[in-house]
Structure formats: C-alpha cells, structure tokens
C-alpha cells in the first residue's frame, strides 16, 4: 500500500470521512480500482466510459495526469495521487 490518495471533500462520503487513504497500483486506474475495492462507489464518481471524468482533475505528485496518459499514467511507490474536482462554471 505504497501510494497515498488524497480525497476531496465531496467524495469523502465514500471513504467514511477520510481525507486520505492508502492504496496500491502501477497505474492511476489500478490505484482507483484498489481504492474502490475498499470504498465502494468512489470509482463511479471518477471514471466515465473508461476515461477520467471531464470535471475531475487527478494528479500524480505535481503532474495533472491528463498530460501523462490519464488512467494509464504511471504510479510508483511513494507517489501521492491527488483528486480535485475542477472549479469551473459560467453563464453559458
């Protein structure tokens, strides 16, 4: 369980209020699946049609994974995965 996953407020209902959970995996998808196995319901908020939901940003350490392979982005032991819903909106 060598990856730390940081959970945003709106998804903490799935983790019993925990802000951070430990997980394992070699890609973002594997880590998400691993967290899902212990905290059911989280994956559906993050993944839509086998891609990361448009409104959700996921970072491995400091890098937004949309620039490094999305769900296939590599994750290594000691990495931190941060999940942050996009802050966006507007009149349109």
């Amino acid at each position, binding site marked *: 369980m060598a990856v730390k996953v940081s959970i945003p407020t709106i998804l903490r209902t799935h983790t019993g209020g925990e802000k951070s959970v430990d997980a394992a995996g070699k890609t973002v998808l594997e880590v998400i699946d691993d967290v899902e196995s212990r905290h059911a319901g989280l994956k559906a908020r993050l993944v839509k049609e086998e891609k990361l939901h448009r409104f959700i*940003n996921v970072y491995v350490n400091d890098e937004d994974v949309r620039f490094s392979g999305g769900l296939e982005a590599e994750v290594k032991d000691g990495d931190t995965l941060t999940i942050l819903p996009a802050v966006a909106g*507007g009149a349109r």
Partner: protein
Amino acid sequence: MLQIRRELVEEIVAHARRDHPDEACGVIAGPEGSDTPERFIPMLNAARSPTFYEFDSGDLLRLYREMDAKDEVPVVIYHSHTATDAYPSRTDVSYASEPDAHYVLVSTKDRDRHQFRSYRIVDAVITEEPVEIVE
C-alpha cells in the same frame, strides 16, 4: 447566510470589473470549520471567456495544497457573469463540487450597478442566502 467583510466584497467586485468582459473567478479562504471568509485569492480564468471560467489545473493544485497547509478551506468561491444576472447557471450547478462553500455571483452586465448575491449549491439544488456585510 454569508457574513463577509466589506473590503472583501469590494475586492471581488473590483476583480470582476477589471476582468470584464471576461468572467472573473477566485476563492476566499478561511479557517476550516469557521465559515468565515478571510483571505482573498483571485484566480486566473484559464478559459478567458465572457461565458465560462475554469481555474487552471496547476493553479488549482497549488491553491488546495496551500489551503491544506494553512488548515483553510474555500469558504467562498466567486465568479462573475458579464452579460447575465448574478444567478447560477446550469453550468455553474453541474460543476459545483464544494458542498460547504458559499457560491458568490457578481454580475457586471450594467456598467453603473453591480449585482452581488450568494448561494449554496448542494446536490444540484440552488439555495440563495442573505449576505451580511460587516465592517
């Protein structure tokens, strides 16, 4: 209810006027659990659009890390509408994902008079709330 210092209201309105006709956006952070807006943080609208705003994803990460380090949360999330009223759009509702935040909307559609209103947006339900400006 949103209780907010006058100078913070003025900073939000000034930001909205400055960025008009693009939408302005930002956060006012406050200590976790206090529900008190304290620290004004204007953000770049990475969309630079008159009808859409989005925090740049790198800015977003830095913002949340900084708030986390200071035990702060985003008490107010604000943005402006530049040609329509200060009421949350369907887009605003679909993106709203901070259930504890006060969503402040400013309208700069009239040059002489701005609108400043605040809402809670929880589970896709909009509830307007009174704004109490404190000195």
